[in-house]
């Protein structure tokens, strides 16, 4: 039986060679993979390290609460809206017990589904399609979005325009494409004008059609090569996500549900207000990032995954017709058990993108989005917890605010932290199956990165640093001396040889 700790710690690390993949390219933020190999290139230890600074919570503490939804957007350059909304939900609890007017809720949903669409499009088309369309060890010079544009101009165009549409939904609801201010504690600061609605509505059907095309692309890849797609980076694990009161997929609000690796419900309709007893944030000596687990199951069995693959398999249905059709096909494809191959994330992600596109259209047709009742009032509270399904998975924001209106406590569990153990297990699975006994090549190392990218780790969320970084692989002997090095710059150019 597979064990999550297998390959986490080598028995005799002193006698092994060390490979460091640092930082992981095409992943925002700072991640690092270290691999210990023996002289026969047998893998003994694999660890994904994500450098997380806990400083951000400290930065929030001491600030007035109304700043927080805007402040926390600085956590992440590619999904700031998720932090904006999770913090707003927590602050709603504080200013009025968590109520919203129908207009405010729908504007926030529109913003969030716009974010889901743009983030999923970015991930699939810009970051992952090069690997999927050309192969994991294809020519590294072509394995990027420019290569995709040259080989499949229609696919690249779809990606660019889907993302742009999502960004426009965000701009119209929050005032700016990045780091807007639309959501404020207790409501929103604007609704839509008829012109704004019509401006978005004119493209909505095209976005739905393209999203469906994207689902078809990834579905086809699975069906044409199940031996790779269905099992690569296999992580059979518990899945956690929000679902609404009927068990339907909902990205903005709901209660927590967990299913085990076989699809059996572990818990359901658990209020996220109790997240901090439900989950424990485990620590390991070799990583700054926490390893959360379901408290009652313990550290060894309680780890889980979040994000598209968890959400699409956790829910009973998707509320929009086309995405629901695709979900049913996805579930049928998996057979009686859920799918846990990491590449399944992409398929699930595209189904979610389709759901987002359909939902955006529905919301645009709802007259409430042009309403004028933007703010709700209610009794003040001291504590607020806001949870949202961010593009990368469940995101927790928790604050306490004193009677002087200042934040005295902040705790955040970002999606990538939730997936920390699962990503480590996926990386180990791939290292064992693809690297063992082989000479290390760029293509083989890219397999490791492909596995990480499936989870779409927003490392910048976790590290609070921005920017794509080139790849650096260092081979170190048992004495810690560097004996070989491989670097890849952000253009995909590879250089080999010790520094």
């Amino acid at each position, binding site marked *: 039986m597979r064990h999550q700790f297998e390959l986490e710690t080598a028995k005799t690390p002193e006698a092994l060679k060390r490979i460091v993949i640092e930082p992981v390219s095409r992943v925002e933020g700072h991640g690092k993979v270290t691999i210990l190999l023996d002289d026969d290139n047998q893998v003994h230890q694999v660890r994904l390290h994500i450098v997380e600074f806990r400083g951000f919570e400290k930065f929030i503490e001491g600030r*007035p609460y109304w*700043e927080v939804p805007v402040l926390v957007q*600085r956590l992440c350059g590619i999904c700031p809206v998720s932090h904006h909304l999770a913090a707003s939900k927590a602050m709603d609890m504080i200013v009025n017990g968590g109520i919203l007017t129908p207009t405010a809720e729908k504007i926030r949903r529109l913003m969030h589904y716009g974010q889901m669409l743009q983030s999923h499009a970015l991930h699939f088309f810009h970051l992952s399609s090069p690997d999927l369309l050309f192969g994991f060890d294809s020519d590294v010079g072509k394995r990027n979005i420019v290569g995709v544009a040259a080989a499949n101009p229609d696919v690249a165009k779809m990606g660019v325009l889907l993302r742009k549409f999502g960004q426009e939904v965000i701009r119209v609801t929050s005032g700016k494409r990045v*780091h807007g201010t639309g959501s*404020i504690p207790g409501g929103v*600061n604007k609704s839509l004008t008829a012109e704004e609605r019509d401006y978005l509505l004119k493209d909505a059907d095209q976005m739905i059609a393209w999203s469906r095309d994207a689902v078809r692309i990834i579905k086809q890849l699975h069906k044409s090569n199940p031996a790779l797609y269905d099992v690569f980076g296999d992580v059979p694990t518990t899945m956690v996500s929000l679902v609404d009161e009927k068990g339907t997929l909902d990205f903005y609000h709901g209660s927590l549900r967990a299913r085990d690796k076989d699809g059996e419900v572990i818990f359901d309709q658990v209020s996220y207000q109790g997240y901090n007893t439900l989950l424990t944030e485990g620590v390991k000596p070799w990583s700054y990032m926490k390893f959360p687990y379901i408290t009652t199951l313990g550290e060894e069995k309680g780890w889980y995954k979040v994000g598209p693959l968890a959400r699409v398999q956790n829910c009973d249905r998707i509320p929009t017709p086309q995405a629901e059709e695709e979900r049913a096909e996805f579930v049928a494809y998996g057979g009686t058990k859920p799918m846990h191959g990491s590449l399944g994330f992409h398929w699930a992600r595209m189904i979610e993108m389709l759901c987002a596109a359909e939902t955006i259209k529905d919301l645009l047709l709802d007259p409430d989005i042009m309403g004028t009742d933007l703010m709700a009032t209610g009794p003040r509270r001291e504590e607020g917890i806001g949870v949202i399904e961010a593009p990368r998975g469940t995101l927790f924001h928790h604050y306490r605010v004193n009677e002087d209106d200042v934040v005295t406590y902040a705790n955040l569990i970002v999606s990538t932290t939730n997936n920390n153990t699962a990503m480590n297990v996926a990386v180990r699975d791939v290292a064992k199956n693809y690297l063992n006994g082989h000479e290390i090549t760029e293509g083989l190392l890219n397999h490791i990165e492909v596995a990480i990218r499936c989870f779409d780790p927003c490392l910048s969320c976790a590290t609070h640093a921005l920017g794509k970084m080139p790849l650096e692989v260092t081979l170190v002997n048992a004495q810690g001396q560097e004996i070989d090095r491989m670097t890849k710059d952000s253009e995909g150019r590879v250089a080999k040889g010790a520094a």
Partner: protein
Amino acid sequence: MSDPKTFFLDEEEIPFEEGQTIIQAALSAGKFIPHLCYHPEFKPHGSCKLCTVRIDSRTVTTEDGQSVKIPGRAAASCTTPAQEGQHVESEVPEILDLRRTLVQMLLVEGNHYCPSCEKSGKCMLQGLAYDLGVMDPHFPQYFSKREVDASHPDILLDFNRCILCELCVRASAEVDKKNVFALSGRGNTKHLICNSESGKLGDTNMAATDKAADVCPVGVILHKRHGFEVPYGQRRFDIAPISDNPVQYAPVKEQV
């Protein structure tokens, strides 16, 4: 009645009344001169130097026939009386450079994180930075350590953003007759204090309706529980840049 007196601002003739300062005359004529510590309702203070202009530069011809410009004296237009026939330069490269440098120094001296500041879009320091084309802070950030005073039930003070213009000091003393604020310390350690035994705003007699509560040109004195209520595109300096509307430029009470 005699013709009104005039002076020249960047070669344009500006009328003035006896006793008016250069900035007063310029603003009433619809000509913008950047300023931070000046406010039409209060005695000029002359501390921020943003309003610096150059007065009566001369051109002389040297023995070999070359024209050489002798720069006039630099002066704060908020404290300098207008004078008949004076030639005042404001929108000239050297003066604009000086103003940019002053803004940059203010930006690094405090902790100005515009995106999460409620005053963003209506802050005069930010508005001037945009207007002057300040693209970066240029100087290394000071990272001064300052606290927030949240002790008052309705008003929050975020000292991180104080530019020591003393408008609140003047408003509290002259209009509210309360003396809630004062500056203390010198040079580097100069900072705003509240006049109460504890030093806390909550222990002063300040009220949210005081003039001092709505006079701060930056984001120090804030009405609690209000933030980001005006969407992007509708904030004061989204609608028109700071220099477009000189008459309404002085801080006004926000509609909340």
